[in-house]
């Protein structure tokens, strides 16, 4: 068990990272599910999230259809075996309904919804193993799944988190830093324009702290974006390598 005093000592975090280190591994694989139109799996530290995308398709129930744009049906949920202690009980609960709602707004603002009126796009995010920061991991994975499904988007949303433990501003909090730390601020960024699509603060941060947190997250979002692109690139390069192997 980690205590609050152990979280940040002598410039090092309890797991040995510096304040600006991301957790490792940070590995994304695209196209892991054959039946889904697009899918992705992310391993970010001890987090494991599976994302699948279907659509655009006809809306059910029909009265929800919007004649001007596509509607997004986002579902974030934790598997019953995903967490430690009581974190991550099975079934939809207050927390997962809230995260599904905020994720829906992220995708609504990233997808070119006006290109597909009267349709609906399903985005499923299943947390298989959780260790803090699952909503940002889930959204990062889901944006790869959306690109894999060929759904037109303005940019790939990147999820990041930062937070304060004592006086230190730390990047990419894990479960202990999240639970025992003073505050945290999970954020979703569109790297190209620098737009913020989601930002939920838990605890208290001064104006300066919030600016510091955003600076830290924006700076490191590029690294996560590169991992997302690599996952999509790998899917096509694998075929290319295979073809070249056959012809060699």
């Amino acid at each position: 068990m980690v205590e609050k005093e152990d979280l940040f000592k002598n410039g090092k975090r309890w797991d040995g990272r510096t304040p600006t280190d991301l957790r490792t591994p940070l590995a994304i694989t695209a196209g892991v599910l054959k039946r889904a139109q697009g899918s992705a799996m992310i391993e970010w530290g001890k987090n494991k999230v599976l994302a699948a995308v279907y659509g655009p398709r006809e809306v059910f129930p029909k009265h929800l259809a919007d004649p001007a744009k596509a509607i997004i049906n986002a579902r974030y949920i934790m598997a019953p075996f995903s967490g430690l202690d009581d974190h991550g009980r099975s079934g939809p609960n207050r927390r997962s309904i809230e995260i599904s709602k905020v994720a829906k707004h992220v995708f609504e603002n990233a997808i070119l919804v006006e290109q597909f009126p009267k349709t609906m796009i399903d985005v499923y995010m299943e947390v298989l193993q959780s260790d803090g920061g699952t909503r940002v991991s889930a959204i990062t994975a889901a944006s790869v799944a959306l690109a894999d499904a060929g759904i037109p988007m303005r940019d790939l949303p990147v999820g990041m988190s930062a937070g304060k433990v004592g006086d230190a501003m730390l990047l990419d909090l894990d479960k202990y830093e999240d639970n025992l730390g003073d505050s945290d601020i999970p954020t979703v960024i569109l790297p190209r324009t620098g737009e913020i699509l989601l930002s939920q603060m838990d605890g208290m941060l001064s104006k300066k702290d919030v600016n510091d947190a955003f600076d830290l997250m924006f700076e490191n979002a590029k690294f996560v974006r590169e991992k997302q692109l690599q996952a999509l690139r790998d899917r096509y390069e694998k075929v290319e390598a295979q073809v070249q192997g056959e012809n060699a």
Partner: protein
Amino acid sequence: MNEMIFPGDLVADHEQHIPGCYTENGKTYAATLALRQNDHVVPLKGQYVPRVGEEVVGIVTDERFSGYTLELNSPYEGDLSTRETREELKLGAVVACKILAVNEVKMATLVEPHPLPEAILVKMEAVKVPRLIGRNGSMLDVIQKHTQSQITVGKNGYVAISGGDTKLAVDVVEKIERESHVPGLTDRVTKMLEHKSGEMHG
């Protein structure tokens, strides 16, 4: 491989309306995964949206007094009036049609139906259909010649194959969908066809 581009990547410094791209503040950006080939952007993924004049292959999903509803491998359905056909179509029937009109909610009005009762239906990515057809239909001609199959290609990504060596034809269509982004596709397909059809006859 040509350079791969991703949603949000800059395509042009001016507004240009290209499939798989969007414009913002006078610039053009990629919206889907695509390949950049010189000045062209070729999408690797994308949904089919009905367009007037295109030939499509659909599946009958509903029968009404006045017509049939066809599924078109798209978020939007097609409508075929009973006036267009003397034959009665069954649910699940595969029909090749032409799109006469597309209304404001993108539903297609279909005409000139050709039922394909014997056909095997293969689904492929709609954006890769041009690769299956080839320049002036060259790729399709080669496949039909070697397999002796009748192949009806819908712009929507449904491919109906009847007669001849259907297994080989299905394999070739799947190969084209999988490998279209790797240069030298025509050579590989020709080689595969010559090799496999030689096996059968020789």
